[in-house]
């Protein structure tokens, strides 16, 4: 018997309207895990600002939230560009009011061995994940400090911040940077009542982002195979459901967690802890080439 399945989608963990009149910004909130997290805030009454680079992406998140009767507005923002971040905040705050909860979810990642990773690939991923997180958090912090009102920041990290991420060394380095930033800012901004934490999810497959799958050889056509291959490696015996990230996010950003700051919380069905108790090791480059060849054949 693996770890139990979670309560169904739509189940409520925190009291009703826990986020009434609270404006929550989710970067990259139009698709995938960001959208799922945004939905859980919306269910609790939040006014959600869904921001992403492309309007067609944030529109998906806004539509999903409105479809459950939630409040949402979209905004365009390239997190790699501090001026665009400022403009994005201006745009959604004009519609919803000041943002007091920020979810730094926007990310970019793709598997590639380091010796085949171009400097531009490294720069692109670290620009989005590390610099983007800083630009958004800085913009948020400046506004909250000026208003003399507190707030909560939640970064979406990855368990490999602690172990390294063979095959995704750009993302792993950036996520480790985000963790360190979490610690620094937790101390710097505690006097301003601004909390900052990082949630590090394990494997939470999302079908609607499969078109830009992280995995080498992964595509929209082989999502089930990708899940099956990963599933047998996870001690929990199941993959994560996105709503589980949503519930933990709504807890960490709520007044119930007002003393929790500077924390890295891993939600992964114990997967990162199993390393030494694991299957035969296959060199990263061989594994990468094998899966690319398999995908090409299929």
């Amino acid at each position: 018997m693996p770890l139990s399945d979670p309560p169904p989608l739509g189940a409520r963990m925190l009291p009703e309207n826990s986020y009434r009149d609270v404006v929550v910004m989710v970067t990259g909130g139009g698709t995938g895990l960001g959208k799922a997290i945004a939905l859980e805030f919306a269910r609790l009454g939040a006014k959600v600002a869904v921001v992403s680079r492309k309007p067609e992406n944030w529109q998906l998140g806004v539509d999903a939230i409105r479809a459950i009767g939630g409040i949402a507005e979209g905004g365009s923002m390239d997190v790699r560009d501090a001026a665009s971040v400022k403009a994005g905040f201006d745009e959604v705050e004009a519609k919803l009011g000041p943002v007091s909860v920020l979810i730094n979810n926007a990310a970019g990642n793709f598997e590639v061995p380091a010796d085949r990773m171009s400097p531009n690939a490294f720069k692109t991923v670290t620009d989005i994940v590390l610099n983007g997180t800083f630009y958004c958090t800085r913009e948020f912090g400046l506004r909250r400090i000026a208003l003399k009102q507190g707030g909560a920041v939640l970064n979406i990290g990855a368990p490999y911040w602690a172990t390294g991420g063979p095959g995704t060394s750009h993302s792993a380095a950036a996520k480790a940077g985000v963790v360190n930033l979490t610690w620094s800012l937790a101390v710097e901004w505690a006097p301003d009542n601004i909390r900052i934490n990082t949630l590090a999810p394990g494997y939470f497959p999302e079908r609607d982002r499969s078109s830009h799958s992280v995995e080498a050889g992964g595509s929209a056509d082989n999502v089930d195979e990708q899940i099956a291959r990963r599933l047998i490696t996870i001690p929990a015996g199941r993959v994560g459901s996105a709503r589980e990230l949503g519930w933990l996010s709504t807890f960490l950003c709520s007044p119930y967690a007002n003393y929790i700051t500077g924390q890295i919380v891993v939600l992964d069905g114990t997967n990162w802890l199993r390393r030494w108790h694991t299957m035969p090791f296959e060199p990263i480059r061989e594994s990468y080439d094998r899966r690319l060849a398999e995908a090409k054949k299929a």
Partner: protein
Amino acid sequence: MPLAPSYPAAASMLAADTFNGHVALITEPGDSVGCAIAAELARSGAVVVLADRDAAACQAAAAAVEAVGGKTKVVTGDLTDAVAVKAIFDEAEGALGAVTILVNHICARPDLPVELMALDRWRAVTHGMLDTVFNCTRELGARRIADGKGGSVVNFGTPNIDTGGAGRADMTAAQSAVMNLTKSLAVEWAPYNIRVNCIAPGFVAGAEAGPVAESDLAVTVPAGRLCEPHEVAWVAAYMCSPFAAYLSGAIMSIDGASWERPGRSPNAFQPIRTRYDAAAASNHGPK
């Protein structure tokens, strides 16, 4: 403005029926944190078993459970003794049914510089803390693996696992071992739907054992205040709930950014012995 207070202690977080049908066993429930967790699990639907060496240590927690209309049972025995722990489980389960939630809470022991620490004290603290956790967790695991009912364990660690805990070396060593045990068991027992997580609280009001007064601790924390016991209880409630069904092997520290602060501490370093002697000489000697 430092970190704002949370909701008041009377605010419950989870729905009142969240733990209906569950029996929760809490060890060493005598301090403010033990009482708060007992009350929070009770008002979220659990029947609460309180276990410690003697009934007096369970009185406050029992009263806290009754105050929220919950059902409780006190079971006594030496938690460092595996045979006694088995008897505790037998008695609790005989009366109430399977224990599916275990909170391995451990009360703080007074700080003591290592050069003043006799071997007896070192053993009492490390053996007392670590063996209690091992005995209770193993007993729960053996039972829930056998009957397939699954379970959730919450351990207590320290934010100081990476930095050491100068001034409380014995407690920190034991708590760090508990944190490592948390991770090993999380992997070993995931296939049996037994989740094992750990809370690492900073300074909690009503839970510090001295000799440094709690009022002197708050100024050391970036949050500008101590943790309130019910804030710890909400974390425990989340960890045990079905909403955390994928959470295992996780450490959640609740310390108001305390451990990240050393690089920005503006005050001169005070040797541990100096600090201890000053505190012990004041009115706040060890309890």
